[in-house]
């Protein structure tokens, strides 16, 4: 049991982060905290890809005659490249979200979801 935990600890930590992010998105009433939850959730996914790319004893994916041309000697570079793209996407999402939050705050003077719904009904 313990050995399973130890050998899979990266997965466990990733899942923990995923759950924290999901809780932030669903459980929190403040819209800014929902956005923070989304960011944590996305970061957990980045970590999931990155830890899937490594394996014990492997080195940076730059060809070196000392290590030979066996793929097992190198870290898989593809997930890193994918995650670079995903980070760009998540930055764009955050930019749009922050702009929306500013627009909401200017209009209603609050980011609390319950208060916001109340004020939307009366406007």
């Amino acid at each position, binding site marked *: 049991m313990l050995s399973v935990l130890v050998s899979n600890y990266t997965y466990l930590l990733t899942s923990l982060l*995923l759950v924290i992010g*999901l809780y932030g*998105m669903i459980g929190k009433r403040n*819209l800014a905290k*929902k*956005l923070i939850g*989304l960011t944590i*959730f*996305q970061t957990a*996914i980045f970590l*999931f*890809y990155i830890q*899937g790319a490594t394996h014990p004893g492997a080195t940076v994916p730059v060809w070196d005659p000392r290590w030979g041309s066996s793929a097992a000697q190198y870290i898989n570079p593809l*997930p890193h490249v*994918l995650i670079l*793209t*995903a980070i760009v*996407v998540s930055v*764009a*999402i955050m930019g*749009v*979200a922050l702009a*929306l*939050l500013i*627009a*909401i705050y200017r*209009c*209603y003077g609050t980011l609390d979801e319950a208060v*916001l719904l109340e004020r*939307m009904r009366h*406007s």
Partner: protein
Amino acid sequence: MNHLPILIPAALLFAAFLIPLAGLWRKNLASAVALTGSGLAAACSMTGLWVVLSEAKLRYRLGGWPQPIGIEYVLDPLAAFVVTVVTFLGFLSLIYFRLSIQHEVPDRFVTAHALALLLLAGLSGMIVTGDLFNLFVFLEIASLSAYALVAIGDQRAPVAAFRYLILGSLGGSFYVLGVGFLYFATGSLNMADVAQRLPAIYDSRAVAAAATLIAVAMALKMGLFPLHLWLPDAYSYAPSAVGGLIPPVMTKVAGYVLIRIFLDVFQPPYLKNHLPIISIIAWLACAGIIFGSIMAIAQNDLRRMLAYSSVSQIAYVGLGLGMAHPLGLVGALLHILNHAFMKGCLFFVAGAIRYRTGWVEISRLKGLGRKMPWTLAAFTVAALSMIGVPPAAGFFSKWYLLIGAIEIGNGWFVAAILLSSLLNAAYFFRVLENVYGDASSNEKEKSQAVDPPLSMLAPILILAGGILALGLLNFVIVAQVLMPIAENFYRG
């Protein structure tokens, strides 16, 4: 000819970047560039559909890299069919766009055009790509432009857009997570390659996790009940022109991705023997069809009614996929086409009424039928088609779904389809009764209301005519395009 798959998103992306530049110089030039870009993309899609049907499917290798290593774009009959629907509807709604945007949000004129083109580029990219991760990038391009387009509506729109953003990005994240599981299980991201490697590891739990995550992701993006919470607000607070652009195509493309990934990558044997996930989708869709229709009856805002009706109609696509039967799939694909035409027409009319009167409440539309005869005649055609009155297109997609449900012997599905037709009739007849009913309570402002200008009326009439034409031509479409696609998937 081999470049057609890339030309469709490329024309749209290029136009999207040109629009802000053109808009700096002359505002109306932005609209001209948008029309040219989307017209080109629609022409490429139609040529593509023709080529693919008469010859073989087109594959385009990006950067010339061989197939499993590089990204490839694939135009097969399914992709060509859906991309044609999307770009054609996009082109029509851009004709409609100019006056409507100028009327409601004039200071966002150029940005809105650029975002509309980016949205279409993202959607068409999602359809033609043959790479799982590339699909995610296009998905986010389309989603981000959709959030921004919704947000330029009235003052409640940013709140709706933010909720859409949180749930939409959650969907996007689930999708990447699912693709991550698939990638680490198979070592590939190319759809055709993954499909070849999957049967050997069908029993793996990572594959089951991937299937579940992707299904949840796309259900969120589709607004499949009970994950539709973002949809009604986003559709009803967005500018009217955006209402003619996003609802007809956006959720359908998510439905297409669901079909593509489950039938093309995971393939029917996996769904049949290993993970019954599409049956769950079918049951949720069944609930969504009824729920959406009942909620639509309760609305007084015309656009909100149409939004809930979309929740119900997109569920038909889920139901058709979930039946795991060729006829169900034919019904789902035909419904993607028919519903795009019907919802496009209905939202265009809602926008035109708002353009002329400023209202969207159903109870205030009394007597409009005589003031805006062409507009509301088109509305009537689309409404009858939604209900499923035979000569109109909507009848035939429901017909194939119904036959599919009878073939697999599921009485609940049959009941849901029939009941939803009744409920559709209930909420559309309420609108029709108002617009053609007694005009004695006519208010003075309404006497000014006439049919909208030609650039708004033409797309409405084209779609209304299209609904009747599709109804008459549906046998050709089913026999030539859809039946071969469906039989190809369920051959094994």
